[in-house]
Protein backbone atom coordinates (compact mmCIF):
# COMPACT_ATOMS: atom_id res chain seq x y z
CA UNK A 1 0.00 0.00 0.00
CA UNK A 2 1.26 3.51 -0.75
CA UNK A 3 2.09 5.87 2.09
CA UNK A 4 -0.67 8.43 2.62
CA UNK A 5 1.95 11.17 2.13
CA UNK A 6 1.98 10.41 -1.59
CA UNK A 7 -1.78 10.84 -1.88
CA UNK A 8 -1.67 13.96 0.28
CA UNK A 9 1.08 15.52 -1.83
CA UNK A 10 -0.70 14.61 -5.07
CA UNK A 11 -3.92 16.15 -3.83
CA UNK A 12 -2.08 19.30 -2.68
CA UNK A 13 -0.38 19.72 -6.06
CA UNK A 14 -3.61 19.11 -8.01
CA UNK A 15 -5.60 21.60 -5.94
CA UNK A 16 -2.81 24.19 -6.03
CA UNK A 17 -2.71 24.03 -9.83
CA UNK A 18 -6.51 24.33 -9.92
CA UNK A 19 -6.39 27.34 -7.55
CA UNK A 20 -3.85 29.15 -9.71
CA UNK A 21 -5.90 28.42 -12.85
CA UNK A 22 -9.19 29.68 -11.39
CA UNK A 23 -7.54 32.83 -9.97
CA UNK A 24 -5.96 33.57 -13.36
CA UNK A 25 -9.27 32.85 -15.10
CA UNK A 26 -11.16 35.36 -12.95
CA UNK A 27 -8.35 37.93 -13.35
CA UNK A 28 -8.40 37.47 -17.14
CA UNK A 29 -12.19 37.61 -17.18
CA UNK A 30 -12.21 40.79 -15.09
CA UNK A 31 -9.78 42.40 -17.52
CA UNK A 32 -11.58 41.27 -20.69
CA UNK A 33 -15.09 42.34 -19.71
CA UNK A 34 -13.93 45.94 -19.41
CA UNK A 35 -12.73 45.88 -23.02
CA UNK A 36 -14.77 46.34 -26.15
CA UNK A 37 -15.21 43.16 -28.10
CA UNK A 38 -17.65 40.59 -29.33
CA UNK A 39 -20.21 40.16 -26.58
CA UNK A 40 -21.39 36.76 -27.71
CA UNK A 41 -23.61 34.53 -25.62
CA UNK A 42 -22.61 30.93 -25.02
CA UNK A 43 -24.51 28.57 -27.33
CA UNK A 44 -26.99 26.20 -25.69
CA UNK A 45 -25.05 23.23 -27.02
CA UNK A 46 -21.90 24.39 -25.26
CA UNK A 47 -23.83 25.05 -22.08
CA UNK A 48 -25.22 21.50 -22.19
CA UNK A 49 -21.69 20.20 -22.67
CA UNK A 50 -20.65 22.15 -19.58
CA UNK A 51 -23.44 20.58 -17.51
CA UNK A 52 -22.40 17.10 -18.66
CA UNK A 53 -18.75 17.90 -17.92
CA UNK A 54 -19.59 18.99 -14.37
CA UNK A 55 -21.64 15.83 -13.75
CA UNK A 56 -18.87 13.59 -15.11
CA UNK A 57 -16.25 15.48 -13.09
CA UNK A 58 -18.21 15.30 -9.84
CA UNK A 59 -18.97 11.60 -10.14
CA UNK A 60 -15.68 10.45 -11.66
CA UNK A 61 -13.64 12.13 -8.91
CA UNK A 62 -15.03 9.74 -6.31
CA UNK A 63 -15.00 6.70 -8.57
CA UNK A 64 -11.34 7.40 -9.38
CA UNK A 65 -10.28 7.88 -5.77
CA UNK A 66 -12.31 4.90 -4.54
CA UNK A 67 -10.60 2.68 -7.13
CA UNK A 68 -7.07 4.05 -6.77
CA UNK A 69 -6.59 5.00 -3.12
CA UNK A 70 -5.74 1.63 -1.55
CA UNK A 71 -7.17 2.16 1.93
CA UNK A 72 -10.68 2.75 0.58
CA UNK A 73 -11.25 -0.86 -0.46
CA UNK A 74 -9.69 -2.07 2.80
CA UNK A 75 -11.97 0.24 4.75
CA UNK A 76 -15.17 -0.67 2.91
CA UNK A 77 -14.41 -4.41 3.09
CA UNK A 78 -12.86 -4.53 6.55
CA UNK A 79 -15.55 -6.90 7.89
CA UNK A 80 -14.33 -9.52 5.41
CA UNK A 81 -10.60 -9.03 5.96
CA UNK A 82 -8.71 -10.82 8.71
CA UNK A 83 -6.14 -8.42 10.15
CA UNK A 84 -2.60 -9.53 10.98
CA UNK A 85 -2.85 -7.70 14.27
CA UNK A 86 -5.63 -6.24 16.38
CA UNK A 87 -4.91 -3.43 18.83
CA UNK A 88 -7.70 -2.73 21.32
CA UNK A 89 -7.65 0.76 22.74
CA UNK A 90 -10.12 2.38 25.08
CA UNK A 91 -10.57 6.06 25.83
CA UNK A 92 -12.04 7.52 29.00
CA UNK A 93 -11.73 10.78 30.88
CA UNK A 94 -9.55 12.24 28.08
CA UNK A 95 -6.99 9.44 28.29
CA UNK A 96 -6.04 6.70 25.84
CA UNK A 97 -5.62 3.32 27.52
CA UNK A 98 -3.33 1.12 25.42
CA UNK A 99 -2.88 -2.66 25.75
CA UNK A 100 0.85 -2.08 26.21
CA UNK A 101 3.02 0.92 27.01
CA UNK A 102 4.51 0.87 23.49
CA UNK A 103 2.82 -0.54 20.42
CA UNK A 104 4.69 -2.29 17.63
CA UNK A 105 3.46 -3.39 14.21
CA UNK A 106 5.20 -4.53 11.04
CA UNK A 107 5.20 -2.58 7.81
CA UNK A 108 3.11 -4.30 5.14
CA UNK A 109 0.88 -6.06 7.65
CA UNK A 110 -2.75 -5.15 8.14
CA UNK A 111 -3.45 -3.81 11.59
CA UNK A 112 -6.88 -3.13 13.08
CA UNK A 113 -7.20 -0.36 15.65
CA UNK A 114 -10.35 -1.09 17.65
CA UNK A 115 -11.06 1.95 19.79
CA UNK A 116 -13.92 2.38 22.24
CA UNK A 117 -14.96 5.47 24.16
CA UNK A 118 -16.33 5.23 27.67
CA UNK A 119 -17.68 8.77 27.82
CA UNK A 120 -17.30 11.43 25.10
CA UNK A 121 -16.80 11.63 21.34
CA UNK A 122 -13.05 11.65 20.64
CA UNK A 123 -10.82 11.20 17.63
CA UNK A 124 -8.06 8.72 16.94
CA UNK A 125 -5.22 9.78 14.66
CA UNK A 126 -1.76 8.43 13.84
CA UNK A 127 0.88 11.08 13.16
CA UNK A 128 4.37 11.09 11.69
CA UNK A 129 7.41 12.66 13.36
CA UNK A 130 7.00 15.79 11.24
CA UNK A 131 3.47 16.31 12.60
CA UNK A 132 1.64 15.28 9.41
CA UNK A 133 -1.26 12.85 9.77
CA UNK A 134 -1.16 9.28 8.48
CA UNK A 135 -4.83 8.47 9.07
CA UNK A 136 -7.65 9.13 11.52
CA UNK A 137 -11.17 8.20 12.55
CA UNK A 138 -13.82 9.43 14.94
CA UNK A 139 -14.31 7.61 18.26
CA UNK A 140 -18.00 7.68 19.13
CA UNK A 141 -19.25 6.31 22.48
CA UNK A 142 -21.62 3.36 22.29
CA UNK A 143 -20.39 2.26 18.86
CA UNK A 144 -17.57 0.22 17.37
CA UNK A 145 -14.78 2.38 15.97
CA UNK A 146 -12.44 0.21 13.93
CA UNK A 147 -9.76 1.53 11.62
CA UNK A 148 -7.93 -0.97 9.43
CA UNK A 149 -4.59 0.23 8.11
CA UNK A 150 -1.49 -1.05 6.38
CA UNK A 151 1.64 0.92 7.25
CA UNK A 152 4.05 1.35 4.37
CA UNK A 153 6.91 3.22 6.03
CA UNK A 154 8.80 1.97 9.10
CA UNK A 155 9.28 4.58 11.80
CA UNK A 156 8.04 6.00 15.07
CA UNK A 157 4.52 7.42 15.17
CA UNK A 158 2.42 9.43 17.61
CA UNK A 159 -1.22 8.86 18.55
CA UNK A 160 -3.45 11.80 19.36
CA UNK A 161 -7.11 12.67 19.48
CA UNK A 162 -8.29 14.40 16.32
CA UNK A 163 -11.69 15.48 17.62
CA UNK A 164 -12.53 18.27 20.03
CA UNK A 165 -13.73 16.87 23.34
CA UNK A 166 -13.65 20.00 25.47
CA UNK A 167 -10.68 22.06 26.73
CA UNK A 168 -9.01 18.91 28.11
CA UNK A 169 -8.95 17.32 24.68
CA UNK A 170 -5.87 19.04 23.31
CA UNK A 171 -3.72 17.21 25.85
CA UNK A 172 -4.63 13.80 24.42
CA UNK A 173 -1.26 13.05 22.83
CA UNK A 174 0.80 9.88 23.18
CA UNK A 175 4.12 10.83 21.57
CA UNK A 176 6.25 8.17 19.85
CA UNK A 177 4.06 5.38 21.15
CA UNK A 178 3.75 3.36 17.95
CA UNK A 179 6.71 1.76 16.22
CA UNK A 180 6.43 0.35 12.72
CA UNK A 181 9.24 -2.08 12.00
CA UNK A 182 10.54 -3.62 8.75
Amino acid sequence: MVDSTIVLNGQTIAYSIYAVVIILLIAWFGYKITKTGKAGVLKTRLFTALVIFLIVLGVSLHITTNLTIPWVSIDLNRDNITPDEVINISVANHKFILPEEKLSVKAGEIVLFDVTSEDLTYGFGVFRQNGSMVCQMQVVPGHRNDLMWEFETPGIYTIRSTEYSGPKGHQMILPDVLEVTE
Partner: protein
Amino acid sequence: MTYKETLINGTKGLFKPDGLTPMQKMALRFVVVGVLFYGLTAIEGMIMRMYQIEPIAGMNSKHFFAIMTAHPLVGIFGSSYLTVFGAFLFLVPFLMKKPLWSIKLGNWSFILITFGTLTFWFSGFITHYAPLYTLYWPLPADFTQFNPVGGAIFILGIAIVMVGTIFFVINIFKTIAYTPEGHEKVSGRAMLASATGFSWKESIFRRKSKRRDNLVSLPVAAVARGTVDTLLNAGIITFTGVLILVYMVAAIFGYNLQDTAVDALLYKNWFWWGLDLIADGLVLIFVAGTWYLLAQLITGKDLYMARIARLALWVELVVSWTVWSHHLLADQAQPAILKIVSGEFVTAFELITQGLAFFIVLVTLWSARPLKMTNPLKFLLGGLLGFGLAVPAGIIQADIGLNRILHNTQWIIGPHVHVAILVGLVMTLYSAVYYLDWQFRPELFKRISV
Protein backbone atom coordinates in the same frame (compact mmCIF):
# COMPACT_ATOMS: atom_id res chain seq x y z
CA MET B 1 -14.63 66.49 7.46
CA THR B 2 -13.09 64.51 10.27
CA TYR B 3 -13.27 60.71 10.26
CA LYS B 4 -15.77 60.86 13.14
CA GLU B 5 -18.03 63.29 11.28
CA THR B 6 -17.90 61.12 8.16
CA LEU B 7 -18.73 58.05 10.25
CA ILE B 8 -21.77 59.73 11.79
CA ASN B 9 -23.00 61.91 8.92
CA GLY B 10 -21.77 59.97 5.90
CA THR B 11 -19.55 61.12 3.05
CA LYS B 12 -19.92 64.90 2.57
CA GLY B 13 -22.72 64.81 5.15
CA LEU B 14 -25.08 63.02 2.75
CA PHE B 15 -26.48 60.61 5.35
CA LYS B 16 -29.85 62.03 6.46
CA PRO B 17 -31.38 59.59 8.95
CA ASP B 18 -34.51 61.69 9.39
CA GLY B 19 -35.38 61.21 5.74
CA LEU B 20 -35.17 57.41 5.83
CA THR B 21 -38.30 55.32 5.54
CA PRO B 22 -39.05 52.69 8.24
CA MET B 23 -38.00 50.01 5.72
CA GLN B 24 -34.65 51.68 5.08
CA LYS B 25 -34.04 52.15 8.78
CA MET B 26 -34.77 48.49 9.44
CA ALA B 27 -32.50 47.29 6.62
CA LEU B 28 -29.68 49.58 7.77
CA ARG B 29 -29.95 48.33 11.36
CA PHE B 30 -29.50 44.76 10.16
CA VAL B 31 -26.54 45.56 7.92
CA VAL B 32 -24.68 47.91 10.30
CA VAL B 33 -24.90 45.56 13.28
CA GLY B 34 -24.09 42.61 10.98
CA VAL B 35 -20.89 44.37 9.91
CA LEU B 36 -20.03 45.14 13.55
CA PHE B 37 -20.39 41.45 14.43
CA TYR B 38 -18.22 40.66 11.42
CA GLY B 39 -15.53 42.89 12.95
CA LEU B 40 -15.85 41.04 16.26
CA THR B 41 -15.52 37.71 14.47
CA ALA B 42 -12.43 38.90 12.60
CA ILE B 43 -10.78 40.10 15.84
CA GLU B 44 -11.59 36.76 17.52
CA GLY B 45 -10.03 34.90 14.61
CA MET B 46 -6.83 36.94 14.84
CA ILE B 47 -6.65 36.47 18.64
CA MET B 48 -6.94 32.70 18.20
CA ARG B 49 -4.21 32.65 15.56
CA MET B 50 -1.89 34.69 17.77
CA TYR B 51 -2.60 32.39 20.72
CA GLN B 52 -1.73 29.34 18.67
CA ILE B 53 1.63 30.83 17.73
CA GLU B 54 2.39 31.98 21.28
CA PRO B 55 0.04 31.83 24.30
CA ILE B 56 -1.20 35.28 25.28
CA ALA B 57 -0.71 36.40 28.90
CA GLY B 58 -3.94 36.34 30.90
CA MET B 59 -5.69 34.03 28.46
CA ASN B 60 -5.90 30.34 29.33
CA SER B 61 -6.93 27.41 27.15
CA LYS B 62 -10.50 27.49 28.53
CA HIS B 63 -10.91 31.04 27.29
CA PHE B 64 -9.34 30.08 23.96
CA PHE B 65 -11.88 27.32 23.41
CA ALA B 66 -14.73 29.61 24.53
CA ILE B 67 -13.68 32.02 21.76
CA MET B 68 -13.43 29.13 19.32
CA THR B 69 -17.01 28.12 20.17
CA ALA B 70 -18.47 31.61 19.90
CA HIS B 71 -16.44 32.61 16.82
CA PRO B 72 -18.31 30.65 14.11
CA LEU B 73 -21.68 31.27 15.76
CA VAL B 74 -21.15 35.04 15.90
CA GLY B 75 -19.96 34.87 12.28
CA ILE B 76 -22.97 32.85 11.08
CA PHE B 77 -25.81 34.28 13.16
CA GLY B 78 -24.56 37.69 14.30
CA SER B 79 -22.93 38.71 11.05
CA SER B 80 -24.12 36.66 8.06
CA TYR B 81 -27.72 36.11 9.19
CA LEU B 82 -28.23 39.77 10.11
CA THR B 83 -26.73 41.11 6.88
CA VAL B 84 -28.56 38.62 4.66
CA PHE B 85 -31.90 38.91 6.48
CA GLY B 86 -31.77 42.72 6.39
CA ALA B 87 -31.05 42.72 2.67
CA PHE B 88 -33.78 40.17 1.88
CA LEU B 89 -36.45 41.77 4.08
CA PHE B 90 -35.84 44.86 1.94
CA LEU B 91 -35.38 43.14 -1.39
CA VAL B 92 -38.35 40.74 -1.48
CA PRO B 93 -41.10 43.37 -1.02
CA PHE B 94 -39.22 45.73 -3.35
CA LEU B 95 -39.03 43.19 -6.17
CA MET B 96 -42.63 42.11 -5.60
CA LYS B 97 -43.80 45.75 -5.60
CA LYS B 98 -45.73 45.46 -2.35
CA PRO B 99 -44.98 46.37 1.27
CA LEU B 100 -43.22 44.02 3.66
CA TRP B 101 -45.84 41.98 5.51
CA SER B 102 -44.68 43.37 8.87
CA ILE B 103 -41.92 45.90 9.52
CA LYS B 104 -42.57 45.39 13.23
CA LEU B 105 -41.81 41.68 12.92
CA GLY B 106 -38.70 42.54 10.89
CA ASN B 107 -37.48 44.81 13.68
CA TRP B 108 -38.17 42.05 16.20
CA SER B 109 -36.04 39.69 14.11
CA PHE B 110 -33.23 42.23 14.32
CA ILE B 111 -33.61 42.72 18.09
CA LEU B 112 -33.81 39.01 18.89
CA ILE B 113 -30.88 37.94 16.69
CA THR B 114 -28.70 40.78 18.03
CA PHE B 115 -29.67 40.17 21.66
CA GLY B 116 -29.37 36.38 21.31
CA THR B 117 -25.90 36.68 19.78
CA LEU B 118 -24.74 38.98 22.56
CA THR B 119 -26.21 36.60 25.14
CA PHE B 120 -24.36 33.50 23.98
CA TRP B 121 -21.20 35.53 23.36
CA PHE B 122 -21.19 36.94 26.90
CA SER B 123 -22.02 33.55 28.37
CA GLY B 124 -19.02 32.03 26.59
CA PHE B 125 -16.80 34.95 27.60
CA ILE B 126 -17.73 34.80 31.29
CA THR B 127 -18.39 31.10 31.97
CA HIS B 128 -16.17 29.56 29.24
CA TYR B 129 -18.90 27.23 28.04
CA ALA B 130 -17.16 25.70 25.04
CA PRO B 131 -18.54 22.55 23.43
CA LEU B 132 -17.60 23.93 19.99
CA TYR B 133 -20.24 24.53 17.33
CA THR B 134 -20.39 20.81 16.52
CA LEU B 135 -21.83 20.10 20.01
CA TYR B 136 -20.98 16.38 19.71
CA TRP B 137 -23.02 14.42 22.19
CA PRO B 138 -22.56 14.09 25.16
CA LEU B 139 -20.00 16.93 25.22
CA PRO B 140 -22.50 19.79 25.54
CA ALA B 141 -23.88 18.11 28.65
CA ASP B 142 -20.46 17.25 30.15
CA PHE B 143 -20.62 19.12 33.44
CA THR B 144 -17.19 17.95 34.56
CA GLN B 145 -15.80 20.50 32.07
CA PHE B 146 -18.59 23.07 31.85
CA ASN B 147 -20.83 24.98 34.23
CA PRO B 148 -24.49 24.04 33.53
CA VAL B 149 -25.68 27.58 34.36
CA GLY B 150 -23.27 29.06 31.79
CA GLY B 151 -24.34 26.42 29.30
CA ALA B 152 -28.03 27.12 29.91
CA ILE B 153 -27.53 30.85 29.27
CA PHE B 154 -25.50 30.04 26.15
CA ILE B 155 -28.24 27.78 24.79
CA LEU B 156 -30.87 30.37 25.71
CA GLY B 157 -28.96 32.89 23.55
CA ILE B 158 -29.00 30.48 20.61
CA ALA B 159 -32.73 29.87 21.16
CA ILE B 160 -33.41 33.63 21.06
CA VAL B 161 -31.54 33.83 17.75
CA MET B 162 -33.68 30.99 16.41
CA VAL B 163 -36.91 32.77 17.42
CA GLY B 164 -35.68 35.85 15.53
CA THR B 165 -34.87 33.59 12.58
CA ILE B 166 -38.35 32.04 12.57
CA PHE B 167 -39.83 35.57 12.61
CA PHE B 168 -37.76 36.30 9.49
CA VAL B 169 -39.06 33.13 7.81
CA ILE B 170 -42.68 34.03 8.60
CA ASN B 171 -42.17 37.56 7.30
CA ILE B 172 -40.63 36.40 4.02
CA PHE B 173 -43.27 33.76 3.26
CA LYS B 174 -46.11 36.03 4.33
CA THR B 175 -44.75 38.83 2.13
CA ILE B 176 -44.61 36.47 -0.86
CA ALA B 177 -48.08 35.06 -0.24
CA TYR B 178 -50.26 37.94 0.90
CA THR B 179 -52.21 40.36 -1.27
CA PRO B 180 -52.09 43.97 -0.06
CA GLU B 181 -55.25 46.01 0.10
CA GLY B 182 -56.21 47.46 -3.25
CA HIS B 183 -54.17 44.88 -5.23
CA GLU B 184 -55.63 42.21 -7.46
CA LYS B 185 -56.14 38.99 -5.46
CA VAL B 186 -53.48 36.35 -6.15
CA SER B 187 -53.48 32.85 -4.65
CA GLY B 188 -50.96 32.79 -1.81
CA ARG B 189 -50.50 29.05 -2.24
CA ALA B 190 -49.66 29.50 -5.93
CA MET B 191 -47.19 32.25 -5.10
CA LEU B 192 -45.45 30.07 -2.51
CA ALA B 193 -45.42 27.07 -4.85
CA SER B 194 -43.80 29.14 -7.56
CA ALA B 195 -41.32 30.70 -5.13
CA THR B 196 -40.21 27.49 -3.47
CA GLY B 197 -40.06 25.53 -6.72
CA PHE B 198 -42.88 23.08 -6.24
CA SER B 199 -44.41 24.26 -9.48
CA TRP B 200 -41.14 23.90 -11.36
CA LYS B 201 -42.54 21.17 -13.60
CA GLU B 202 -44.81 23.76 -15.11
CA SER B 203 -41.97 25.57 -16.74
CA ILE B 204 -39.55 22.74 -17.48
CA PHE B 205 -41.43 19.82 -18.98
CA ARG B 206 -44.41 21.52 -20.57
CA ARG B 207 -44.32 22.55 -24.17
CA LYS B 208 -43.15 26.09 -24.60
CA SER B 209 -46.57 27.25 -25.79
CA LYS B 210 -48.30 25.74 -22.74
CA ARG B 211 -45.83 26.87 -20.11
CA ARG B 212 -47.18 29.12 -17.39
CA ASP B 213 -45.23 32.15 -16.35
CA ASN B 214 -43.43 32.09 -13.04
CA LEU B 215 -45.26 34.14 -10.46
CA VAL B 216 -42.13 35.46 -8.77
CA SER B 217 -38.79 36.69 -10.11
CA LEU B 218 -35.67 34.53 -9.90
CA PRO B 219 -34.05 36.43 -6.97
CA VAL B 220 -37.28 36.09 -4.95
CA ALA B 221 -37.37 32.37 -5.79
CA ALA B 222 -33.79 32.07 -4.50
CA VAL B 223 -34.69 33.84 -1.26
CA ALA B 224 -37.75 31.62 -0.79
CA ARG B 225 -35.84 28.38 -1.43
CA GLY B 226 -33.02 29.40 0.91
CA THR B 227 -35.62 30.35 3.49
CA VAL B 228 -37.02 26.80 3.42
CA ASP B 229 -33.60 25.58 4.61
CA THR B 230 -33.44 28.44 7.12
CA LEU B 231 -36.72 27.21 8.62
CA LEU B 232 -35.65 23.56 8.76
CA ASN B 233 -32.32 24.53 10.31
CA ALA B 234 -34.01 26.70 12.93
CA GLY B 235 -36.24 23.74 13.85
CA ILE B 236 -33.28 21.37 14.26
CA ILE B 237 -31.15 23.83 16.25
CA THR B 238 -34.09 24.75 18.50
CA PHE B 239 -34.92 21.09 19.19
CA THR B 240 -31.26 20.34 19.89
CA GLY B 241 -31.06 23.33 22.23
CA VAL B 242 -34.13 22.15 24.15
CA LEU B 243 -32.61 18.66 24.42
CA ILE B 244 -29.36 20.03 25.86
CA LEU B 245 -31.26 22.43 28.09
CA VAL B 246 -33.16 19.52 29.69
CA TYR B 247 -29.84 18.03 30.84
CA MET B 248 -28.57 21.41 32.04
CA VAL B 249 -31.68 22.33 33.99
CA ALA B 250 -31.63 18.87 35.59
CA ALA B 251 -27.97 19.37 36.58
CA ILE B 252 -28.73 22.83 38.01
CA PHE B 253 -31.40 21.27 40.23
CA GLY B 254 -29.06 18.47 41.28
CA TYR B 255 -30.34 15.65 39.09
CA ASN B 256 -27.86 13.68 37.02
CA LEU B 257 -29.52 12.41 33.86
CA GLN B 258 -27.80 9.52 32.13
CA ASP B 259 -25.75 11.15 29.40
CA THR B 260 -25.78 7.94 27.37
CA ALA B 261 -29.56 8.15 26.98
CA VAL B 262 -28.99 9.77 23.57
CA ASP B 263 -27.21 7.70 20.94
CA ALA B 264 -24.09 9.68 20.01
CA LEU B 265 -24.07 8.61 16.35
CA LEU B 266 -27.80 9.15 15.85
CA TYR B 267 -27.43 12.59 17.44
CA LYS B 268 -24.48 13.33 15.17
CA ASN B 269 -26.53 12.43 12.09
CA TRP B 270 -29.44 14.50 13.32
CA PHE B 271 -27.25 17.50 14.15
CA TRP B 272 -25.28 17.47 10.89
CA TRP B 273 -28.45 17.06 8.85
CA GLY B 274 -29.68 20.29 10.39
CA LEU B 275 -26.41 22.21 10.48
CA ASP B 276 -25.62 21.36 6.88
CA LEU B 277 -28.79 23.13 5.83
CA ILE B 278 -26.79 26.31 6.45
CA ALA B 279 -23.43 25.50 4.90
CA ASP B 280 -24.66 23.32 2.03
CA GLY B 281 -28.13 24.76 1.72
CA LEU B 282 -29.21 28.27 2.42
CA VAL B 283 -25.76 29.83 1.98
CA LEU B 284 -25.31 28.36 -1.50
CA ILE B 285 -28.88 29.15 -2.53
CA PHE B 286 -28.86 32.70 -1.16
CA VAL B 287 -25.46 33.35 -2.73
CA ALA B 288 -26.50 32.01 -6.14
CA GLY B 289 -29.66 34.11 -6.02
CA THR B 290 -27.66 37.20 -5.07
CA TRP B 291 -25.21 36.55 -7.92
CA TYR B 292 -28.12 36.37 -10.38
CA LEU B 293 -29.58 39.62 -9.06
CA LEU B 294 -26.21 41.40 -9.15
CA ALA B 295 -25.44 40.15 -12.66
CA GLN B 296 -28.72 41.62 -13.88
CA LEU B 297 -28.22 44.89 -12.01
CA ILE B 298 -24.66 45.33 -13.27
CA THR B 299 -25.39 44.43 -16.89
CA GLY B 300 -28.99 45.63 -17.21
CA LYS B 301 -29.65 42.42 -19.14
CA ASP B 302 -31.72 39.30 -18.58
CA LEU B 303 -29.98 36.39 -16.97
CA TYR B 304 -28.53 33.78 -19.30
CA MET B 305 -30.34 30.45 -18.99
CA ALA B 306 -32.69 31.84 -16.37
CA ARG B 307 -34.96 28.79 -16.45
CA ILE B 308 -32.03 26.46 -15.83
CA ALA B 309 -30.81 28.75 -13.05
CA ARG B 310 -34.24 28.52 -11.41
CA LEU B 311 -34.20 24.72 -11.69
CA ALA B 312 -30.64 24.56 -10.30
CA LEU B 313 -31.80 26.46 -7.21
CA TRP B 314 -34.51 23.86 -6.66
CA VAL B 315 -32.04 21.01 -7.18
CA GLU B 316 -29.70 22.69 -4.69
CA LEU B 317 -32.53 22.81 -2.15
CA VAL B 318 -33.24 19.08 -2.50
CA VAL B 319 -29.52 18.24 -2.53
CA SER B 320 -29.04 20.20 0.69
CA TRP B 321 -31.43 17.77 2.45
CA THR B 322 -29.41 14.73 1.45
CA VAL B 323 -25.70 15.55 1.78
CA TRP B 324 -25.14 15.56 5.55
CA SER B 325 -23.25 12.25 5.60
CA HIS B 326 -20.09 13.84 4.17
CA HIS B 327 -19.53 15.04 7.75
CA LEU B 328 -19.53 11.44 8.97
CA LEU B 329 -17.09 9.82 6.56
CA ALA B 330 -14.65 9.28 9.45
CA ASP B 331 -17.32 7.62 11.61
CA GLN B 332 -16.77 3.91 11.19
CA ALA B 333 -20.20 2.99 12.52
CA GLN B 334 -21.91 5.10 9.89
CA PRO B 335 -23.39 2.78 7.21
CA ALA B 336 -21.14 2.59 4.13
CA ILE B 337 -24.10 3.14 1.80
CA LEU B 338 -24.79 6.51 3.43
CA LYS B 339 -21.12 7.46 3.15
CA ILE B 340 -21.01 6.64 -0.56
CA VAL B 341 -24.43 7.89 -1.70
CA SER B 342 -25.00 10.89 0.58
CA GLY B 343 -21.42 11.65 1.59
CA GLU B 344 -19.81 11.38 -1.83
CA PHE B 345 -22.11 11.29 -4.84
CA VAL B 346 -25.00 13.50 -3.79
CA THR B 347 -22.53 15.97 -2.32
CA ALA B 348 -20.83 16.12 -5.73
CA PHE B 349 -24.03 17.66 -7.07
CA GLU B 350 -23.04 20.85 -5.29
CA LEU B 351 -20.16 21.08 -7.73
CA ILE B 352 -22.74 20.91 -10.52
CA THR B 353 -25.31 23.37 -9.13
CA GLN B 354 -22.73 25.88 -7.95
CA GLY B 355 -20.73 25.42 -11.15
CA LEU B 356 -23.84 26.22 -13.17
CA ALA B 357 -24.51 29.36 -11.14
CA PHE B 358 -20.86 30.36 -11.60
CA PHE B 359 -20.98 30.02 -15.40
CA ILE B 360 -24.45 31.51 -15.82
CA VAL B 361 -23.26 34.67 -14.06
CA LEU B 362 -20.01 34.81 -16.05
CA VAL B 363 -21.84 34.41 -19.37
CA THR B 364 -24.39 37.07 -18.38
CA LEU B 365 -21.58 39.50 -17.54
CA TRP B 366 -19.71 38.63 -20.75
CA SER B 367 -22.78 39.33 -22.84
CA ALA B 368 -22.76 42.96 -21.70
CA ARG B 369 -19.10 43.82 -22.28
CA PRO B 370 -17.58 46.33 -22.09
CA LEU B 371 -18.47 46.87 -18.45
CA LYS B 372 -17.07 49.47 -16.11
CA MET B 373 -15.09 47.88 -13.27
CA THR B 374 -17.26 49.29 -10.49
CA ASN B 375 -17.04 48.28 -6.86
CA PRO B 376 -20.08 45.96 -7.07
CA LEU B 377 -18.51 44.20 -10.06
CA LYS B 378 -15.16 43.84 -8.30
CA PHE B 379 -16.79 42.32 -5.23
CA LEU B 380 -19.02 40.10 -7.36
CA LEU B 381 -15.95 38.67 -9.14
CA GLY B 382 -14.31 38.21 -5.73
CA GLY B 383 -17.39 36.36 -4.50
CA LEU B 384 -17.40 34.10 -7.56
CA LEU B 385 -13.71 33.35 -7.07
CA GLY B 386 -14.27 32.55 -3.38
CA PHE B 387 -16.82 29.86 -4.16
CA GLY B 388 -14.81 28.75 -7.21
CA LEU B 389 -12.03 27.91 -4.78
CA ALA B 390 -14.02 26.73 -1.78
CA VAL B 391 -16.60 24.39 -3.34
CA PRO B 392 -14.05 22.07 -5.02
CA ALA B 393 -12.04 22.07 -1.76
CA GLY B 394 -15.14 20.78 0.01
CA ILE B 395 -15.83 18.16 -2.66
CA ILE B 396 -12.25 16.89 -2.24
CA GLN B 397 -12.82 16.53 1.50
CA ALA B 398 -16.15 14.78 0.89
CA ASP B 399 -14.37 11.70 -0.42
CA ILE B 400 -13.91 8.50 1.58
CA GLY B 401 -10.25 8.10 0.61
CA LEU B 402 -9.16 11.71 1.06
CA ASN B 403 -11.27 12.27 4.18
CA ARG B 404 -9.15 9.66 5.97
CA ILE B 405 -6.10 11.93 5.69
CA LEU B 406 -7.79 15.36 5.71
CA HIS B 407 -10.59 15.24 8.29
CA ASN B 408 -10.17 17.72 11.13
CA THR B 409 -7.10 19.29 9.58
CA GLN B 410 -6.51 22.86 8.45
CA TRP B 411 -7.61 21.77 4.98
CA ILE B 412 -11.30 22.01 5.68
CA ILE B 413 -11.27 25.06 7.93
CA GLY B 414 -8.86 26.96 5.66
CA PRO B 415 -9.38 26.39 1.92
CA HIS B 416 -13.05 25.38 2.36
CA VAL B 417 -14.78 27.15 5.26
CA HIS B 418 -12.88 30.41 5.53
CA VAL B 419 -12.42 30.90 1.80
CA ALA B 420 -16.15 30.26 1.29
CA ILE B 421 -17.14 32.75 3.99
CA LEU B 422 -14.42 35.41 3.90
CA VAL B 423 -13.90 35.51 0.16
CA GLY B 424 -17.09 34.05 -1.31
CA LEU B 425 -19.96 35.04 0.97
CA VAL B 426 -18.63 38.32 2.35
CA MET B 427 -17.56 39.68 -1.03
CA THR B 428 -20.96 38.75 -2.49
CA LEU B 429 -22.71 40.53 0.39
CA TYR B 430 -20.49 43.60 0.05
CA SER B 431 -21.33 43.75 -3.63
CA ALA B 432 -25.03 43.70 -2.69
CA VAL B 433 -24.54 46.31 0.04
CA TYR B 434 -23.52 48.79 -2.67
CA TYR B 435 -27.14 48.66 -3.84
CA LEU B 436 -28.58 49.59 -0.45
CA ASP B 437 -30.08 52.72 -1.98
CA TRP B 438 -32.44 50.49 -3.95
CA GLN B 439 -35.49 52.52 -3.12
CA PHE B 440 -33.97 55.58 -4.79
CA ARG B 441 -33.01 53.76 -7.97
CA PRO B 442 -36.08 51.87 -9.13
CA GLU B 443 -34.89 52.06 -12.74
CA LEU B 444 -32.24 49.46 -11.87
CA PHE B 445 -34.89 46.90 -11.09
CA LYS B 446 -37.13 47.29 -14.09
CA ARG B 447 -35.72 44.21 -15.78
CA ILE B 448 -36.13 42.01 -12.72
CA SER B 449 -39.89 42.08 -12.74
CA VAL B 450 -41.75 38.83 -13.35
